[in-house]
């Protein structure tokens, strides 16, 4: 404090700068401490044969862990499953989210209640969501079997989580339920800011509702869709908690995604080096995905403002 008061010769602007820097210094320290340091040590570990345990010596492998993973069929099967999870869940979420956003935007009776209730699935923590769906899917006392049986759609209880592909799709369903509101809310907010004149002009020019949606509204929504897609794709690609709770990667590894594999390698099997290499591969792939989106969807020159 004394130091600050001593520098009265500084201009107001300079003093503000110093204060500003001082104020953000603690958060900078924290950010570097809890974000950058772990990332760097993970990168470092990924070049070693490192095991969990006290007082162990790590053996330098260079790119050994990475080459090992890239040659491992389990890694590629897991990548395929993760891509399937990502594509299907984000794809369905986008279509449903856009539909719901338009519905709210049309302001039907009760739209405020609809918008408020949308928050609920999204506000439920993923772990709670996963536990809930694990119970819903239970073969002997789950709500899904109860519902379908009472509606007469099935005549006896079905064990839902015993086939790898079915289990994967059911986990995706649980994820969709959780995440559609996020996309719907982003798109609804974007819709509310769109100029109505353009659609009115198109209507005057004789465009059908479908044409108005496809050629006017959708292009205007591109930036908002991009944001939603990038965030959700990155999230979906790194999906972990919902799988941990609903299936623990079963049956027969049918729902083991890349993050789950990383968790198994690192914490269950203690292969920290290999796990770190996996984490880095995940980061690289998510960066690539984000880059692809931005490359294809983000076109500032087309923005109609």
């Amino acid at each position: 404090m004394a130091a600050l008061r001593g520098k009265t010769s500084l201009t107001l602007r300079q003093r503000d700068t110093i204060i500003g820097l001082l104020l953000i210094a603690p958060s900078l320290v924290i950010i570097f401490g809890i974000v950058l340091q772990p990332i760097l040590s993970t990168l470092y570990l990924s070049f070693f044969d490192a095991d969990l345990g006290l007082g162990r010596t790590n053996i330098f492998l260079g790119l050994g862990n990475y080459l090992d993973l890239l040659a491992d069929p389990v890694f590629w099967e897991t990548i395929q499953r993760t891509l399937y999870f990502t594509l299907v869940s984000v794809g369905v979420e986008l279509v449903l989210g856009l539909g719901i956003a338009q519905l709210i935007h049309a302001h039907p009776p009760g739209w405020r209640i609809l918008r408020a209730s949308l928050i609920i699935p999204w506000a439920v923590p993923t772990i709670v969501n996963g536990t809930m769906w694990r119970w819903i899917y239970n073969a002997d006392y789950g709500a899904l079997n109860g519902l379908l049986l009472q509606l007469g759609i099935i005549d006896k209880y079905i064990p839902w989580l015993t086939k790898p592909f079915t289990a994967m799709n059911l986990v995706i369903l649980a994820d969709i339920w959780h995440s559609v509101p996020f996309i719907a809310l982003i798109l609804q907010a974007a819709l509310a800011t769109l100029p109505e004149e353009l659609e009115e002009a198109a209507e005057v020019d004789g465009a059908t509702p479908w044409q108005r949606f496809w050629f006017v509204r959708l292009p205007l929504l591109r930036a908002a869709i991009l944001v939603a897609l990038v965030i959700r794709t990155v999230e979906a690609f790194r999906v972990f908690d919902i799988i941990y709770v609903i299936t623990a990667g079963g049956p027969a590894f049918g729902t083991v995604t890349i993050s789950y594999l990383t968790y198994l390698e690192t914490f269950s099997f203690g292969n920290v080096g290999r796990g770190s290499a996996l984490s880095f591969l995940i980061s690289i792939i998510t960066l690539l995905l984000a880059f692809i989106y931005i490359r294809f969807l983000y076109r500032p020159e087309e923005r109609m403002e």
Partner: protein
Amino acid sequence: MKTVLRLFAFVIVLSLILAGCQQAEQGPATVRVLAMEQAGPTVDEMNSIVAEFNEENPNVEVVIEYVSYDALHDKITTAMASSPPAYDVFLVDDIWYAEFADAGYIWDVSDKITPEMQENIFDAAWDITVVQGKTYGMPWLLDQKYFYYNEEILNQAGITEPPKTWEEMVEQAKVIKDQGIVEYPIVWSWGQYEAAICDWVTLLYGNGGSLVDDAGNPAFNDAKGVETLTWMLQSIDDGITNPASVSYVEEDVRNVFSQGKAAFATNWVYMYDLVNFNEDESQVTGKIKMSLMPAFEGGGVVSATQDGSMGFSIAAESPAKEVAWDYIEYLTSEDVQNRYSAHLLPIWKTSFQGEQLETLMGYTESNKTTVPMFSEQFPYSYVRPKVTFYPEASKALQLALQEALTKSKSPQQALDDAATKWVSFME
């Protein structure tokens, strides 16, 4: 500007106060304990033991946390990464002792073990916590898989005796199924968890098979192993085994069995009290019996089951090792173990001898059945191999069982693949 400065001063003062709090802590020594909430004593029982201990030892404060069994191993390995470790005391499954001792996580307590403890506790219990001649903790839970049946369902089907062999079980199950009493007569925990290994070991050893041979090489993919896995698959195809077993753990088994939806089940000892005496938890109270775990006719054994025992250990880097030991000693003492024996039985041989036996059986209603059942079943209890790479080897084996049960590989192929992986972990 003034506001900003004041805010800044406030932050500094606040952080000084917080830092001061850290140092000012001069109260009782804290012992942080990690236990599990699953297939054992209830959280209420564990909490009340902690409360008793804290009451008697004002200089120590035990703080206990619970996780599910399947989260326990990974929670321990992450907790050990910090210094000092996040927990002073934790529950260790018998299959992790080799790994944890090798990793240097657990404190060698060999010189804490009195001759009296050595003498009065079951040898099988000491096997849990001893690795290469050193004792790394106190045995606590001496458990095994038991065979449960719903007597009412058997009687309805005109069956008077529970099955002695798995072949008999299948025959009885067919009668029960054909009469439409229950859809799926038996439910298992064959989900992709350690639970699947426990049921598999029970069946495998009952068929005269073995997980590893004397040299420690995988033996589960021999003819006996393939036969056992094929039998499991067949029992699903025949509609005898509840098909959802492939996604179940012990708690699912208990829930299904408690609803009267299965005639037979295998589970740890904790299920008996809950399913037969607890009306909040069970719709079939008073109808449940236990009998010796069946074996296969060609297996050459009377019975075989899975030994699933656990011990409490102290973190080697813990700053509170001595008081932590006091707590463990209290928790595993004969008196406490006898009094809290509804969901786990004592590790003390002496509890099962003479007048003590009468007292033990009298503690709870369920002890009248579980105590004699323990003595009858325990000679046929098999342990899983103690190897440092157990979690990884077990996951490979879980995958093999699941691949066969979901028909993505043949039993032979799946087990051979797991055996290849097992050998690679040994290197």
